[in-house]
């Protein structure tokens, strides 16, 4: 079927089976490999992207459900050379180990902060609990998110958000 959607601000049209998960469309049709495949069942969060401003598990989202929608992936979080404040925090805190889950972690955190610029520790933990990290970077993730959440009130740039 013909599917059109806006990905990181660009309108994309493709001819694809409607039940193809958004994940594989992003990765293999549009070349956006930053979004990862982890479980295929919405259990690990590695494939998290924003669809119409909501975090979704792209491995379990048929592309037909995203038709006409606005999708933001890790590649669309920065504003040109200006990284999203969370990406800067991730680098500053040295969060990634193997790094495979981190795109999904950052997308979940970005959604949290877009809707709740000053979350409590409990709110951060709750928002990040759907994203598994096998290396065990959880404490650095919290520290990185809190550093941005703290800085937000002083008006630092958040980059583009769907």
């Amino acid at each position: 079927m013909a599917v059109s959607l806006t990905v990181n601000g660009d309108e994309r049209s493709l001819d694809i089976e409607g039940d193809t998960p958004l994940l594989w469309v992003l990765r293999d049709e549009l070349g956006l490999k930053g979004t990862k495949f982890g479980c295929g069942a919405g259990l690990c969060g590695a494939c998290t992207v924003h669809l119409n401003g909501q975090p979704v598990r792209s491995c379990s989202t048929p592309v037909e459900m995203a038709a006409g929608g606005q999708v933001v992936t890790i590649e669309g979080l920065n504003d040109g050379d200006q990284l999203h404040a969370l990406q800067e925090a991730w680098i500053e805190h040295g969060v990634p180990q193997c790094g495979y889950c981190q795109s999904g972690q950052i997308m979940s955190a970005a959604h949290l902060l877009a809707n709740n610029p000053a979350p409590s520790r409990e709110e951060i933990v709750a928002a990040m609990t759907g994203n598994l990290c096998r290396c065990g970077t959880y404490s650095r993730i919290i520290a990185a998110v809190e550093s941005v959440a703290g800085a937000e009130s002083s008006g630092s740039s958040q980059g583009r958000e769907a």
Partner: protein
Amino acid sequence: MAMNRRNFLKVSAGASGSLMVSMTLPGCAGIQTGYEPDTGEWRPDAWLELTTDDEVFFTLARVEMGQGTYTGLTTLIAEELEIQPERITPRFAPVAPEYRNPLYKLQLTGGSTSVATSWEPLRMAGAEARQMLVMAAARVWSVKAAECQASEGRVVHPNGIDSMAYGKLVALAAKEVVRGDIALKPRSEWKYIGKQRGKLDARAKSTGTAVYGIDVDLPDMVYGVVSRPPRRGGRVRDFNADQVRAMPGVLDVFEIERGVAVVADKYWRARKAQDALQIDWDFSDAVSLSTGDVFDSYRAAADDDPGESERSEGSFASAMEAGDRVIEAEYAQPYLAHATLEPMNATAWYRGDRMEVWAPTQAPDLGRVAAARATDLGPDDIIINTTFLGGGFGRRLTQDYIEEAAAVAYRTGRPVKVIWSREEDTRHDLYRPAMLHRMKASLSGGELTGWHHQIVGPQILDWYVRNAAPAQYPWAPKFMYDTLGSVGLMAEGIATPKDISAIEGAIEYPYQVANIDIRHTHTDPGIPITWWRSVGYSHNGFAVETFMDELAHEAGEDPFQFRRRLISHEPRHLEVLERAARLADWQSPVPDGRARGLALFRSFGTYVAQVVEAGIENGAVRVYRVTCSVDCGQVVNPRIVEDQIEGGILFGLTAALYGEITLQDGEVQQSNFHDYPLMRQYERPEVLVDIVDSTEAPTGVGEPGVPPVIPALGNALFALNGKRQRSLPLKANA
């Protein structure tokens, strides 16, 4: 530093005016080193390339799977080269004998050995290059080399004002010959080692631009999936090839050694076609065991065979005779999956006379052997391109996923990426072996007088040697592979290292006890196994440190004081034990509903003591706090040490709380994260990592955080409710 540099360093001018420094390790003298432009073959164990454009490239011979080699090893070479680590571009090494890990004589990353084995050679390589650059500059300026300084990628004139960038000196430096030994910088002059610095791969991994195996993209690439027998040993009898071949996008459906492959133009089409695939399996030679049978077979083996003696001191029999009490306990641990977040995958392209493979692998030279097995090619015809690894934990030391991709590509003739589903990754993993431990100890008047430990279970080398032995002899013809495997096993302990995978962590029992008897009853139920983050240490640590806790309880002594008394002869053990107890305020009261447990365990040369504070909330075990003291010798990057230890603790807690692969009539019962769960953010305990400031040579940190946390948690639960748990995973309602 009394090492003769000529034994392991050679410099040559390479293509495009760049300066190459290459090396082999001490003990490899006689191997030709350097770069041969005509063959494109590098001969170093690791190397630097400096270009006239002032670029510095570093070939990383130990893969990056999250453990930090990308930053850590680059830091070592940067320190002596006198350039900021951030200005060096690491590149993943191709397969070459000189990139082998000297401890294994294979090109593999594992065993928490990367920093320990690179510590001197990489610094020497950096120092050698720096010295030549300084000599070249001195020659240009007609001053003494000894009066010039190298700093931040430049050589500075004795006048302190003029300087030249390394790039300008490359062509001249390549002609310099360093005579005599080079002194490495003293610790007091280090700028990067031991200092808090960022991770060189953090940016790529925070922007989605780091390339993992699954991200490899090639022109004209297609996708493969493989259906494997649900029971190991099952064989394909028949399948509905015609029906599946007619499905949209499907290019081919065919049998390979490990099952039936479906190749399609898109991954999702391959998966949908696989759903329609109906395979008639022949299970006549297949495994039909259930988990209970495995442990029954272990108990029968343990009864029949006391096992090979692995360590014997004094007389345990006499100690039992003389003691006033004998304590016995049996411990059991299940099979464990690796659950790397990046599922197994590999991309291969067969081009008639050669094959190119792109893969996240911990052992690229074994990957060549695996690909050779599946094709008409020899290992020399196979090029392995290593990517970032989305987790390793030992899983990617076994190359079955490369063998499979090679088999699919061999038939496809186009680049093909084979991706495993999470369910396939879980069910067709090679597991951390299930093990049984029989412990016995004698007490005499509250004193521990005898220690007996019978380890029951398989050895990993029995499974691993299949590809490892041929990889050590890449010139051997393929028909010899099976022979090499057998020879490798026969030579174990003579020509090759003894396989200590089952007994590591048990034979080094550190406590002062006069009579010690440690044995291994070797029995293998035929379930595939491989290395797993800390492997033998993970199961022996649980048995040893839980039993020590039992003995302290039987002797009526505080578990900390009991250990402290018996370890006073081991200063590094003692220090971490005392520090962890002090930091956790061991003697202080615990909040209601909580209890503390501790464990002390050395693995991979690193000393670790941990105190766990835990409780039971809403019918589930809850871990509140882990306090960990670690002595890993000299620290290269403090942040990475903290990360690895904390990550190891969470990895161990995941095993302690959830980890269990079970078999029912030969089929693995777990499949995805709902039935093989990993610890989540909300369960994370507060973790304090305390690092001993040490000038000893660096030891591993990737694995040593794992073993002690499992018994420390079990010991805390015993302190909480008086119920001793002797099998894993631990239960709230034991």
